[in-house]
């Protein structure tokens, strides 16, 4: 009985039936909370697929963006697709190597030093910086001096991706067993060589999968692009200068149009965007499932 009195939250004198009922209610509430989440998710995915599928097609994905009032069937979202692919690719090329290097510093060199702890902590904090602030930042530091361009958009997306890549790569590097490092040191390898030829390859699948998820997230971002690429309707093959467009910006401008054709193109673009995100996410899962050597 002494034990029971030390645990005030568990009052064993309550009638057993009522305790069991309360338990059932609690379990039901937990299941219900999952159901509550499925409903909006199903609702939004169903709507996007139902409305987007009728719009989408090869010519829709490749042809020019028409006037807003023109009906569905004329033109498509070609410039937005190419813009999104170019800008996201450019952002990936900037953010992933830097992020992986940052993670290497945190994990291989920094260890428990105050500076490394500070950088790790600030990387966490940086993931919480709103994407629109990144857009304003690149606007202030780049666009005001060099004008709108796909490159500026890529800078903003890269700023968003950087802390995410650092954090996910850091987790993966932590999982590489120390015995691998020690074995290589025992053979006389330098730290750089151990990192580049032993630690990184061992952690690579996890790093790739984390990077793919970061890319999937960045591809859907609108806010950082609004003030960095502007939204135009013509194709701009030059990512490095001149206003550009992207799928999210196009959806944002079409969403407030009263014309059914423009709205339908918005749904088609939304389906395209979700499809891109899904493909990246599934690729990440495949990499994780098939190639991961060390996991939690």
């Amino acid at each position, binding site marked *: 009985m002494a034990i029971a009195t030390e645990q005030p939250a568990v009052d064993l004198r309550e009638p057993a039936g009522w305790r069991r009922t309360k338990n059932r209610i609690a379990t039901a509430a937990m299941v219900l909370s999952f159901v509550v989440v499925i409903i909006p998710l199903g609702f*939004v995915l169903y709507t996007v697929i139902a409305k987007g599928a009728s719009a989408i097609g090869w010519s829709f994905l490749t042809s020019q963006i028409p006037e807003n009032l023109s009906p569905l069937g004329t033109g498509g979202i070609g410039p937005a697709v190419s813009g999104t692919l170019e800008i996201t690719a450019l952002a990936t090329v900037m953010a992933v190597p830097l992020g992986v290097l*940052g993670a290497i510093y945190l994990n291989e060199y920094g260890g428990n030093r105050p500076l490394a702890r500070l950088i790790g902590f600030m990387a966490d904090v940086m993931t919480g910086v709103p994407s629109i602030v990144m857009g304003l930042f690149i606007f202030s530091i780049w666009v005001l001096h060099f004008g709108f361009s796909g490159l500026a958009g890529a800078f903003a997306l890269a700023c968003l991706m950087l802390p995410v890549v650092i954090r996910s790569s850091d987790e993966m590097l932590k999982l590489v067993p120390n015995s691998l490092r020690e074995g290589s040191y025992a053979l006389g390898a330098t730290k750089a060589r151990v990192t580049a030829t032993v630690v990184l390859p061992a952690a690579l699948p996890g790093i790739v999968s984390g990077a793919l998820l970061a890319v999937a997230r960045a591809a859907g971002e609108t806010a950082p692009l609004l003030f960095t690429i502007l939204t135009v309707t013509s194709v701009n093959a030059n990512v490095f200068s001149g206003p550009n467009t992207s799928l999210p910006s196009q959806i944002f401008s079409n969403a407030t149009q009263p014309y059914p054709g423009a709205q339908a193109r918005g749904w088609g673009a939304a389906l395209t965007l979700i499809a891109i995100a899904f493909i990246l996410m599934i690729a990440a899962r495949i990499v994780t499932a098939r190639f991961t050597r060390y996991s939690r």
Partner: protein
Amino acid sequence: MSAVTRAGPAETAGPARALSHRRPLGDRAFQVIALSAGLLVLVILVLIAVTTSQQATSWFSAEGFKIFTNNWNPAANQFGALAFIFGTAITAVIAVILAVPVSVGIALLLTEVVPRRWAQPIVYVVDLLAVVPSVVWGLWGILVFAPWLQGIYTHIASGVTGIPVLENLFGQPTSGESFFTAGLILAFMITPIVTSLSREVIATVPAIDKEGAYALGATRLEVITGAVWPHSQGGIIGAVLLGLGRAMGETIAVALVIGSSPAITSHLFAPGYNMPAVIANQFGEAAGVFRAALIGMGVLLFAFTIIINLLARGIVARNARRMRGA
């Protein structure tokens, strides 16, 4: 400090010593490159604060403390941002109130109820909410969800007429686009992050505590309230704060469904505005002090989210340390 130097015998004469004194250039260069990549995080954060504040100075100097008044009229050069700050707070709070119970419920379901092989599919499904881009939530919100909600709002409003407090909160719906719609969509969007953070926290509860409670004959609910909750309380508060930070900064979905009219009101079903939404919607036509005001709201947003994040990460880290010590 490579391990090689320390591994070598200290008194060896000749070439071994020459080798041990300096690390090869490539090795040091690699360390410097990695360090600068890490430092980039700090540099970017400082640059964000400096450059955006610089662009916003004309707002701060023109309005002074009047930036915190409810007086927004760009045509008359009046840029008081209180309505937008209010909107940011109210939508984020609605989102957190709606999302947190659900997220903690799912986190408990994952850790305490379902077997491991069911947990993974549930996590995938919840994470899908985060895969849907903000702008798609907004498109769905403005074209499908808000029109549908309008009918429900009208029903609720007619149900609460005459009831003192509820009437002030849920009365006078004008359209489906409102503070509440924005808060609701934000709740969908922050559920995955709050769920995964809460789950991480709950997973650190020592199995021995739970097993001990079960051995005493406690039901699952009693294990949760008696053993799991006291351990994970702090961490979950951190998770909630991080969710709040996310909800405050989320832009595009809110910009489309909030109704775009600056207002300070107790009516949650009335159209409103918040800081990210006004920046996104009006930046294109803004110049001079107007643009400075919008960038200045970005600075405020940055400051708020940084403070919330510092607080939350601090709480989570302290909680994790305490748990490891326990």
